[in-house]
């Protein structure tokens, strides 16, 4: 029979079905995402409150975020109050509310990173409240045709262009580590 929500690549929240366009979630996600990130001219990482809350085997998500950003010399936008964590780690994140950054990303003349010409052509999401992130991704999907989005959370995010599947922490950690590794 038909079943509700085959687990891995259906929207994490049961009802979060946006429409015909839903994220790809390829088997070799870490490698593919790393390739996309390396190829991108001006990628950006946006992180939310969970980077200060989620731990994977004792390592806070924020430390993954910083590793990722460093690998690619990519700016981080720290949403909500997460700036504090970056300051503690001496990482020069830019503080901006999720909707503020998403709003600006619709503008092809905007860049967080003054060293690189606009627009941001790839945006990665990590650690943002699921439904909040989903709505932000929706804005980008509809109104920022010049960029692609990747989510690195443990939830399948239909509104992204690319998303990890729904996974438990164990596998998530592997995915994140493989991604970091593939970033070179």
């Amino acid at each position, binding site marked *: 029979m038909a079943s509700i929500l085959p687990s891995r690549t259906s929207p994490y929240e049961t009802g979060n079905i946006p429409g015909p*366009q839903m994220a790809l979630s390829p088997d070799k996600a870490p490698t593919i995402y790393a390739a996309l990130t390396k190829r991108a001219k001006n990628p950006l990482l946006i992180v939310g409150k969970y980077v200060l809350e989620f731990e994977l085997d004792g390592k806070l998500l924020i430390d993954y975020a910083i590793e990722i950003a460093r690998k690619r010399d990519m700016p981080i936008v720290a949403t909500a109050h997460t700036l504090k964590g970056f300051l503690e780690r001496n990482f020069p994140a830019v503080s901006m509310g999720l909707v503020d950054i998403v709003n600006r990303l619709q503008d092809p003349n905007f860049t967080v990173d003054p060293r690189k010409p606009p627009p941001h052509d790839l945006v990665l999401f990590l650690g943002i409240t699921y439904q909040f992130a989903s709505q932000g991704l929706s804005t980008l999907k509809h109104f920022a*045709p010049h960029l692609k989005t990747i989510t690195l959370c443990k939830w399948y995010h239909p509104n992204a262009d690319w998303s990890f599947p729904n996974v438990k922490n164990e596998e998530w950690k592997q995915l994140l580590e493989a991604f970091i590794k593939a970033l070179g």
Partner: protein
Amino acid sequence: MEIRKGPARFSLKELRTNMIQAKDLEVTIGRLAMEEEWEPQGPTPFPGIKDLRAWDFKFLSRYKPFYAPFCDLCCLCTYGKCDLTAGRRGACGIDIKTQQARIVLLACCIGAATHTAHARHLLEHLLLKYGEDYPINLGPEIECEMPHVRLVCGIKPKTLGDLTYILDYCEEQIVQCLAAVHTGQEGNYLDFESKALHMGMIDHVAMEVADVEQIITYGYPKGDPNAPLTEIGCGCVDVTKPLTLSIGHNVAPSIEIIDYLRKAGLGEPGQAIEVAGLCCTAHDMTRYTNQAKIIGPMSYELRFIRSGIADVIVLDEQCIRTDAVEEAWRVKTPVIAANERACYGLPDLTELPVEAIVNKLVRREIKGAAIFDPEKVGAVAVLTALRMQPLRKKYKAIPDIDQIKQAASPCTFCSKCRRNCPWDLPTDEAVNAAKHGNIEPLAQLYDRCIGCGRCEEACPQHIPVHSLIVAAGERKFKTEKFKVRVGRGPILDTEIREVGAPIVLGEIPGVVAYVGCANWPTPMSDVGRMAYEFARRGYIVTSTGCSAMAIAFYKDEEGRSPYEVFGGGFLRGELSNEGSCVANPHISDACIKIAYIYARRNLRGNYEEIADYILNRVGACGVAWGAMSQKAASIATGFNRIGVPVIVGPQGLKYRRLYLGRVEDEESFKVYDARTGERVFVGPAPEHLVYVAETVEECMVWTAKLCIRPSDTTKGRMIKLTNYVDLYKKFYGKLPEDLPMLVRTEADIPVTFKDEIMEFLKAKGWQPHPMPSIDPTMLERLIRVKRV
């Protein structure tokens, strides 16, 4: 039918029609207050859709609509579903942006309609009871008694009967705007927004009518800063007594319950019988007598019904769980549907004698009865409760603590419950832990669960997840009891006289309003945490509805409710509960009254000027942390139109639209200095009109920030920045990046952070602004000296 004496009355709609021809003439008809020369009529009495469009477009050019589509499809007509992904147009030609704006308008129409219908229905009841000549009198300290009505309609109603006309107007406008939602009507997102703003404004007018009509007739507090405290929480009822539970927003039947008790010699609520309420009806019952009890906000409905404590449930309207009748049936609580708008399929027994209805209910011949006569509801509810109470002690749908493990035992840890939970609460882990004997994780969810029941709907094993959470939190559930202040209603003119100047000058750092529903991202006591913090900092803190309840659930270090700590005035460092949701306009009214009383601006039909005034000078900010409903959408939009920014919680993005400024676009943040006509950049003051915060910390920082206004004096700005910088540093760990825009001169800099900020500013190359103090306006016509 009695023919009314006195001069003739004309419907306002007729007046409007004629006024088109007679724009500048004074209207002197019948008993409506129009004849009085209380003020010259302004440019937009009874505005239609088009009349404030220019104003909307003006501020929407600064606060541009930001859309987060919630669905890529449209399914509103039989051409659909149309795929609107990324700009594809539907069969009617609409695109995704316009579609989102259309849905926003629809939500605002529904919201405004709900309050208007409520006001109309209650008014018809009150007119029968109190007569149309019943005066509108809010006491000696309120001369300006219906500011929104004066401002929008340009009239000054004097009697209960006069309110009819206001609602006529509201209904007409709602229908006009709803028509624009139809397939193939309005086709531009800005015009949809303008109409949504129109609906928000109408909503505030209708709510004002709804609250004033009940305040004056039921003898609610008339702006009493010392309104009494009352009890809230499931623990506040004596479960050994019969209990009537009212759910909803339209208090008429609940008032009749109390009146029946009194008439029948059963004393006050809480004596022979407990009279309790959920949602706004509960607020309004306690405004009638503080012996009535408040169970809690909407999130408490399911748990309280399932507890089986209620001996009868009276549903009036709004914020009723649509499974209430089924849930009540499970625990054998009979239900009375007391309102046409929410009949629940129950048989209409209005015409039966009271005793016959009670018999049917008590004998469980029917799940409930629809009774469209509030007085009869009062009698039936009380008598049913009395007879049910001994019968049904043992029924409840929440397991005992020792049954939890067994109930959890079928859990397969499939996580479907969690994936269907709006807040992704770890129900899967908690149920699984309970299965293995540890109920602590379940108990920990008690405070975070918003009681929606979606976890249970998803569980393939039919485990009653929500009930298990409540069972695990049993001790809390049964004993929790807090103090809340009774809804005080309007703000006194005297208060406005006291705070008007310091608000406009910025010396009171802001007015913060906690409003809206129970879809909270974090435990509801966080609303109290925020309210406490801002009252402590000297802000004027106000609240309504479920949020006013949530505040009571916070306890400070000494175990006191914020309402016990702070006075109930509209005063520096005080915290008031205005009342139910329809009390929201008292907050916008306070802003309007500042313009009227402090700044002596004319109100009458003068919406644009007053909104401009408030946006530029009244540092007020609404916080709807758990906003869920269409009503909340229209209320927030109404605040926006009058110039008050609003912050919503993370789910608020599902409303699909924000109004966000981009302060780097300096031109959009320029205003006129009315004294010179010069265009002056005012910085992010305020930066956004609707903003979504992800965390409580972010919300608090933004609350402080959104209270900043161009009109702040240096002293005022300094005080506001002190709070903003302090909160920012505390939660974000450094100085805010936008300080160079907010600090106009050195005198603006908070003393506490002086050196640090000076250094920071220097590093940024900051220069004092040429014009720190201006008379700001966005309306060219208010410039006193035209620019050469």
